[in-house]
Every structure is written in structure tokens, then in C-alpha cells.
């Protein structure tokens, strides 16, 4: 079994009713120190001053740009008028994971990127920071979610996976009176919010707090519950009226080069070898890796590659190099992520491809690479350009594979290019009992996209449920 799947389980399964998530997870102090929040929160006075800068646009572009369409001027106005609870409520109405979104959203290409201030030669309103200010206030208050469930409507839905899409779907369904059960194969709920986001953006504890609030609405969680066989699936189909697939993507894609499998890190506390980016992030976020030394090579130049590279650096690596088969101008990470990597001292090796992994005489890792150039039919390696890199850990970060194997089990759920095909307006799959959203349908976007998907699917399910009820009455 891979290291990734053998992380210590904090609970055997399910929740003890008296136990909340914060007590299930103990933050590692060293990790918290090394991964201190990237941005300091706004002070109360600064928040009001910033809120007062907002022009309160009509049909605001920031609201339109946000996939969950948070009423940005509405919540900012409430901050300006010292109504933080109202502000948090306004935000939560649109986005139940607003706390994590305020920390992880690439706002430069969303709300803040759309702010009219850009055309006014002024810095955009710090929407994410203001949202965080309101959400932090709400979280500190200890109040349960203000979206309390409507009367039971006789609908029971299972959400498979407990990442942002499922959580948003579950919260919306529960709010409108459905019963919801979330099934999670891992020990802790939250999906990538808990296991996959750089800790200096969103800590595991912060993610779990949001899950706990949703659980407080009466959503049932079954942890350590993988759905792997058709028998399990048949049981679920019998138990639930609808099933929402929020399963995300599969494991990080492998480099598929000689020596990769042989050097895979298998045991806890072993750090020399091959450990993919998501495994590394999950391991340090759960306190299983607190130190990393030597020379680290990250393969890939997307946002996850940056997260892993920065993590390696903060965990104590002597040097971290990002190896990318294309040029700097082709980097797929967001500009601000790339800038952050540079700021943290990450080095780059452009236009190179790893071709083999070997063990050196001093028991370290040798990564054989070849230069890559643009050929007539796409990229091609350059003969005679061999370069062997001496290092300690190789971290592949070249994108997640789809969860094909598992999804094939769902009869009648059509997939295309590894993604579940859905009606974008409702999240309905080709099997009317199944709805889906998040990374498994969009191939991997942001938390806020998953929240929007999950919420839309919830509304789709509710609509279908009502239609079915009406049909039954007719």
C-alpha cells in the first residue's frame, strides 16, 4: 500500500456524536510555525477603511465573476456599517465554504480581477481579505451556521466524497429540508481543503471547522467509507433517493519512467525517493512529515507544483528546483503563484524532461533528464542533451488522473475524457439518480467552482424531487 493511503487514521469510522472535528485533529506546532498564514488578516479598522473604498457597483462585476455569485457589495457594505454577522450571513447564503474560499481563491482572476477599480487606476478592493474578515468574525463567534434546515421534505441524498463540491451540495440540500449523508473514504472530511491546500493559505484545522459547521446543520458523515464495489453501490442506490458524486480526481499522474516505482517512498519518515505533490502536501498537513532536507526536484509547473515546491522549501530543503518541459512563458500556475514561488527562492530548470530515476553511489537519487525542444509534431527530446541531477526527493506534480476505475462502477453514468458528463445547469448525469460536480466533472478547477457545482446540483436534485413528487400525485 502506498504511503499516501496509509496515513494514521484518527478515528475508526464515522463521528462520535459528542466529538467534534477540532478534537479529532491536533495541529503540529512546527508545521503551523513553518506554514504561517501568507497574509496577515485585516485589522477591524483597516477592514472598515477598505470596505468604505468599495463603490457598491450595480450588478457588480465581482459578483458576476464569482462562480458562487457572492453579493460582494452587499457583504462589504455590512462590514462598513459594523454589521459583521450580517456580512457573514450574506456571504454564506451564496457560499457555505466562504472561509476557505477567502483564503484559497485565485481572486486575481475572479472577483478582484473584475473590480472596476482597475479601470480607475486604483488598486482593486481587497475582497478576499474582507470576506475573510467577516468569516473569521463568524467563526470566532462560535455560532452555528445561520442556514438552518427547513422542515423535512422526505428526501435522502448521499454525497460521495467530502470535498468542497459534496459539502456545498450537502449544505444546500440540508438547508432546504433534505437529509444528507456524506461518504468519505479517508479519515478526515474536507477533501482537498483538508488534505491538499498549502497550509499557509488554508490550514487543516480551518478546513475542518467549516466541515464541522456543516455537520452542525444535521448532515451525517460516514468516514473511512470507500465506495469501491458494485455491491456497495447497489446498497447506496437502494438506501438513497439521489446520489451526488463529488469524488474529485484520482491520484497524481505518474511520470512513467524507469525507476519511479522502485524509488517510491513507502514508509513514514522516509523522505528520500519519489513522493508526489499531493502525497507530500497531505503528509505535512497531517503532521506526518515535518522536515525535508537536501535537494528537491519538483516535476511540473502548475499551481500544485508551486504548492509542493514552496512546502518543500519551508520544510527545510536546502534547494528546490522546478523542472518543466516547457518554457517560463508556458507555466500553467497563476501568475501570482509563480511570483510567490520565485519569492520563496524556488529555482527553475526549463525545457527538460525526466527520463529515469536511479540510486547514486552515495545512496541518493539520480534523476536523468533530456532537453526538450519544439518539433514539427509538438515537443521532442534533444538527442545528446543528457543531464543527470543529483537529488534527494523527486516530487511529480503533473496533474491528477481521473477516477476512472471507480466511476465505471456507476452504471449509466457517462464519462468523457475522464470527466463525468453533466447538464451544467443542474449537475444531472446521464443516470437520473446520479448528480455530480467539482473536479470529477470539470477536470480540476478551484474550490469556488466546486462549491458552485455542488450548490447547482443540490438545486437540480431538489427540482427533480419536486417534479417526481408532483408526478406521483398527478
Amino acid at each position: 500500500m502506498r504511503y499516501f493511503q496509509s496515513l494514521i487514521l484518527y478515528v475508526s469510522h464515522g463521528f462520535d456524536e459528542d466529538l467534534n472535528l477540532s478534537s479529532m485533529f491536533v495541529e503540529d506546532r512546527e508545521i503551523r510555525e513553518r506554514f504561517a498564514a501568507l497574509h496577515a488578516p485585516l485589522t477591524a479598522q483597516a477592514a472598515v477603511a477598505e470596505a468604505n473604498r468599495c463603490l457598491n457597483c450595480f450588478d457588480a462585476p465581482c459578483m458576476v465573476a464569482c462562480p458562487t455569485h457572492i453579493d460582494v457589495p452587499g457583504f462589504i457594505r455590512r462590514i462598513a456599517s459594523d454589521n459583521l454577522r450580517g456580512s457573514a450571513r450574506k456571504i454564506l447564503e451564496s457560499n457555505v465554504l466562504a472561509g476557505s474560499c477567502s483564503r484559497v481563491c485565485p481572486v486575481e482572476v475572479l472577483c478582484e480581477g473584475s473590480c472596476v477599480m482597475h479601470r480607475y487606476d486604483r488598486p482593486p478592493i481587497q475582497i478576499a481579505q474582507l470576506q475573510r474578515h467577516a468569516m473569521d468574525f463568524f467563526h470566532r463567534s462560535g455560532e452555528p451556521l445561520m442556514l438552518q434546515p427547513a422542515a423535512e421534505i422526505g428526501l435522502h441524498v448521499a454525497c460521495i466524497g467530502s470535498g468542497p463540491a459534496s459539502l456545498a451540495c450537502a449544505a444546500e440540500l440540508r438547508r432546504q429540508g433534505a437529509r444528507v449523508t456524506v461518504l468519505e473514504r479517508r479519515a478526515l472530511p474536507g477533501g482537498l481543503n483538508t488534505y491538499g491546500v498549502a497550509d499557509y493559505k488554508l490550514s487543516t484545522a480551518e478546513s475542518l471547522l467549516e466541515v464541522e459547521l456543516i455537520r452542525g446543520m444535521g448532515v451525517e458523515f460516514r468516514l473511512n467509507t470507500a465506495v469501491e464495489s458494485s455491491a456497495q453501490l447497489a446498497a447506496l442506490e437502494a438506501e438513497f433517493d439521489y446520489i451526488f458524486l463529488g469524488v474529485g480526481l484520482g491520484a497524481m499522474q505518474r511520470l512513467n519512467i524507469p525507476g519511479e516505482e522502485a524509488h517510491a517512498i513507502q514508509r513514514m519518515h522516509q523522505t528520500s525517493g519519489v513522493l508526489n505533490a499531493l502525497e507530500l502536501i497531505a503528509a505535512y498537513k497531517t503532521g506526518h512529515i515535518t522536515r525535508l532536507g537536501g535537494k528537491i526536484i519538483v516535476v511540473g509547473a502548475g499551481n500544485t507544483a508551486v504548492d509542493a515546491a514552496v512546502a518543500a522549501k519551508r520544510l527545510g530543503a536546502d534547494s528546490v528546483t522546478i523542472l518543466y518541459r516547457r518554457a517560463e512563458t508556458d507555466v500553467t500556475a497563476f501568475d501570482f503563484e509563480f511570483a510567490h514561488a520565485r519569492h520563496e527562492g524556488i529555482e527553475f530548470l526549463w525545457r527538460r524532461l525526466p527520463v529515469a530515476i536511479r540510486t547514486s553511489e552515495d545512496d541518493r537519487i539520480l534523476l536523468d533528464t533530456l532537453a526538450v525542444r519544439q518539433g514539427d509534431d509538438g515537443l521532442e527530446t534533444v538527442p545528446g542533451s543528457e543531464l543527470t541531477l543529483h537529488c534527494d526527493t523527486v516530487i511529480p506534480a503533473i496533474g491528477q488522473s481521473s477516477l476512472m476505475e471507480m466511476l465505471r462502477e456507476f452504471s449509466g453514468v457517462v464519462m468523457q475524457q475522464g470527466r463525468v458528463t453533466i447538464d451544467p445547469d443542474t449537475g444531472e448525469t446521464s443516470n437520473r439518480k446520479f448528480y455530480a460536480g467539482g473536479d470529477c466533472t470539470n477536470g480540476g478547477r478551484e474550490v469556488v467552482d466546486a462549491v458552485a457545482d455542488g450548490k447547482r446540483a443540490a438545486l437540480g436534485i431538489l427540482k427533480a424531487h419536486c417534479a417526481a413528487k408532483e408526478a406521483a400525485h398527478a
Partner: protein
Amino acid sequence: MPERVMTEPDLRVTNFAGGITSPNPFWLASAPPTNCGEQIMRAFDAGWGGAVWKTIGAPVTNVTSRYSSIDWMGQRMMGFNNIELISDRPIEVNLREITEVKKRYPAHAVIASLMVESTREAWHEIVARSEDAGADGLELNFGCPHGMSERGMGSAVGQVPEYAEMITAWVKEKARTPVLVKLTPNISDIRAVARAARRGGADGLSAINTINSITGIDLDTLIPRPNVDGKSSHGGYCGPAVKPIALNMAQQVMADADSALPLSGIGGIATWADAAEFILLGCGTVQVCTAAMHYGYRIVEEMSDGLSNWMRSKGFRTIEDFRGLSLNRVTEWKHLNLNYKIVAHIDEQKCIGCDLCHIACWDGAHQCIHLDRVSGPMDGHVELHATPASRESESRESITVTPVTRREREAAFGKHAVGHGPYPTPLARIPRVDETECVGCNLCSCVCPVENCITMVEVPTALPPETWEERTRGTACVAEPQIT
């Protein structure tokens, strides 16, 4: 036309109200900044031209706290309120210091603000003592709206024209220096008291004193501000918020033949521009308090400098060159030209797409600014257009995703992003004015955050000017009551 080379304008005030001179028109109003000689001398050093001494009278006992303020949009003290009484120092100390100040600053104006009980003897005595001390003029405090009024002084006098006239007359029996009467705005028509002061023989007026106010209530304790051991009392309101009220009252006084006297303008003055406006309505000097309490005496430096530069740019050499120039530009509504038409014009190059003009026009005006440049212009009936609410709900129902790939980001934010027309803002977000429906109310240009983006453009009507009075003259529907 201003000359190409012009000497620095002369800010001096000479012979104001029949004999007061000062190096510039900026005086400190009677208030805490003029509490004592030491302060006033520092103020003169900082550049103030004159000071009206904190009101002298039988010493009082004050309470704590005394002030409260209104903050607005993160700015402090947009409006300010006080319940402080007149000077709490002995009369003889104040008078001794007046002598000292005048000895050291003979060119500056030192005005004694006075308030005593309403007897002829008391007023005669304080007038004589103040003038003996060396005051350049007297300001009768008939305006203080709190505390003193309960004792039959301050605005209790200023709200009854007969009292004001009587006391002014008593003072004039004795006074050798110019006598200014400070007017209270807490009256239905400020001209009633201005006329009374004039009848009583006043040489000039000061206006306005503070406005009765309760600035607010602490929503934790439910106690209004300022809090004096669990209770509050109405105070006098001042600061930038009151300037429009003060300007109107200055105009009312100066435009009324029976009221008009040399006027020292007061009310929310914080900058040279504020001062220029009061002078344009006829004021010979201006008095400042709140701004000096907020930032200190040093603000006068910028006020002098700014006024001087503006005068220079306008070709005015002296204060008298522009004093009162705007007075005849204020008239009664019935004399305004009904055939003058302006419409809003939006500069598409400057528009940032906040669409505040659209929602303001739809909800607060006349429904003639539309967001239909992409869907196709549609003039006429409001019912033909999408309502603001339907537009917003359409946005909320739209599906948008994070642009994660370079191509998606380019499409959303790049130079050739979808929806962009020839202007910096996407065409769909640039509002369009239906000029046939636009009533020229100005609201859009008031709400537009971008300078000169929305301007009001005259549309020739080809009609001769006509006022309401002219239009209705000789008709049966004259509704104007005749005041005799």
C-alpha cells in the same frame, strides 16, 4: 483677464464693519481654540489674521465629556457637537490677556465675544471693560444653543428679535469699537434677528452659530453622545456637515436689504475653497473652529496659500475684488429659466462600468439611463427595458467558472477579452443616456465616482428664456402668496 505677471494677491482686510483690520480674512471663531492669550498668540504666529475670544462673561462650570462627532466613510469628524459653555476663566484674566495679546500683535484683530445677563448695566460694564482692555471689536453671543440659553442668554436672546434688538441697542449706547451680532441658525428665518440687530445699530454680523443637535446614540449603552454620567443634552452642531446650511443663511442675510451688514461667515469652513465660497456670498471675513480643533492652527497656512493662488488664477487682487460676486447668482426659484435644458453625457472612455448612474437613475430619478448598448438601444417606455432586479437575478443565475488555463485567462482579462468594445470598459457595462427622456436632474453626475465622466450638456431649446413667474403672470393659477 489676469495679467501675465501679477504680484501676489493682497489678503488684507481693512475697515471691516467700520474699523476692524486684519492681515487676512481668516479668524478663529469664539471657541476652545481662542480660550486664552497664549493660544491666540500661537495662532497668530501660525498665520491667523484674527481671533474672536472665547465668550467672556460670568465664569461657568463645565461638564465632562463635552464633545461628540459624526464620522463618515472612515473619515473622522464630518460633523462635530459640543455642550461646552462660555469661558470658565475669570473675566479679569481674559481681559488682562487681551491687553497682552494686543500689545504684542497690534496688527491682528482681537474681538471680544461677550455674553452677560440681560440688563443694560451688565452689558454697559462688560463693553467698557473689554474696550478698555484693547479689543478691536465686540461680538455679541446671541447664538450659543445649549446651557446658556436655559439661563436666558445666548440663543434665548438670538431667537427673540425684540431682545436681540434691545441688547444690541444697549451695547451701542456704550461701544466705541465695531459691534458684531452673532446669529443663531436655530430659528425659522435668520433674517428676523439680522434685521433686529441692524435696527439695534449693529455694525456687522457673524453667522452662523452652531445648530441644535444630538449627534448619535451609543448602541451598546443606549446613551446619547456626549455621555455625561449616563445622560446627554442637546449640543451645538458644526464642522463640514453644516457648511451648506451656513452658506444658505449667509446668502439670505446678505441678499436682504434690511439684514445686510458686514458679515463674518462661519460654518464648516476647513479649506481656502470653503472660505472663498463664503466671501463670494458677501462675507468680509470668515471664522473657523472645528477644523482648527481637528488639525491645529497650522491649517491656516494652506488656507492663505490656497486662497491666494486661486485669487491669482482668477485675477483678483484683493478680497473686495470678489466679495459678493456670487450673491446675485442666487435667486428665487420663480426666476429660474424654465426653457434651459441640459442632459447627461457619459464619456465612454472614462466610464469604469460601476453602473451606479444606471441604478441611481432607475431607482432615484427618471429611468432614462439604460444598459442596452449590446442588446440594442431602446428608447421610450420604461416597461420596454429590463428592470435592475431582473438584470441582477440574471447575473446570479449565470454560470461562471474560474479561468484556470492561460487561454481562459486571456479570454477573461486579456486585451481582446470577450465583451470588450472600443472602450476600456466592456460595452455591456457602459450605460447609455436616453436624451429625450433625460430631465437633466444631475443625479448621475453626482453619483459617478469618476471625475468628468458624466457631464451635463446644454441642449438648445430654441425657446427664449422664460421663468415660472413670467409664464404664470396674468393667469388665474397664480398660487404665490403675497407677503406685505
